């Protein structure tokens, strides 16, 4: 399975090694790892809590990966999204792509994380000294996602 939604942390090197081993045709591996920042609007973050919609989140990620496979020549994709309570500097999400050449791997990796941010049902709540707040979809994330509509590769 190339999609995992889990409480546990992940090991980047092990995930890339698995993707590398999946085919001798792989000439390029690209990965993106999203981390918990320790600040938000000038406030220090104590922790974040992430939840998802079991069933729909896997389906949404499958759809995004299928779209990436339709746009680029990919040999493998791995997506891991963590849920539960996370502390600053912890890993939240991994998107890794494998292809024959780097162009496809770079583009597909960016496409998948941009779509994940705006189309996959995950929710994030930040805890600062002022209390907790559920985050909204950022306009900048929507704009990044919308670029892919005009930029058909």
């Amino acid at each position: 399975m190339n999609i995992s939604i889990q409480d546990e942390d992940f090991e980047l090197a092990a995930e890339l090694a698995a993707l590398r081993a999946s085919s001798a045709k792989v000439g390029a591996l690209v990965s993106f790892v999203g981390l918990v920042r320790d600040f938000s609007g000038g406030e220090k973050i104590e922790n974040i809590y992430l939840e998802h919609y079991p069933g729909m989140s896997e389906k949404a990620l499958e759809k995004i990966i299928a779209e990436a496979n339709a746009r680029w020549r990919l040999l493998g994709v791995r997506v891991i999204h963590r849920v539960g309570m996370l502390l600053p500097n912890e890993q939240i999400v991994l998107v890794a792509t494998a292809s024959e050449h780097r162009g496809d791997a770079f583009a597909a990796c960016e496409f998948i994380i941009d779509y994940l941010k705006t189309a996959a049902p995950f929710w994030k709540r930040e805890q600062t000294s002022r209390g907790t707040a559920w985050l909204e979809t950022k306009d900048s994330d929507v704009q990044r996602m919308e670029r892919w509509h005009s930029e058909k590769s």
Partner: protein
Amino acid sequence: MKIKLLYFGRPREILNTSGETVDVPDGIATLAEMLAWLRIRGENWALELTDKRVRCAINQEVAALSDPIHEQDEIAVFSSISGG
């Protein structure tokens, strides 16, 4: 009409429920009408489930508030998504 309701994100926390099965009265045919019916439940519901604030999915697909609802649908009610 019986439907399964699920709550995620802010509404789940504020309304203190992650899901329920409800029997929607006759005459309620869309998500927007269902939300209006839920808002009658009390102040938290009225404040949290406004058309502007809330997002919905029907049977695990993102839906517009004007979309029709049907018997046995799984309807999710949630705040703006923020993963990654």
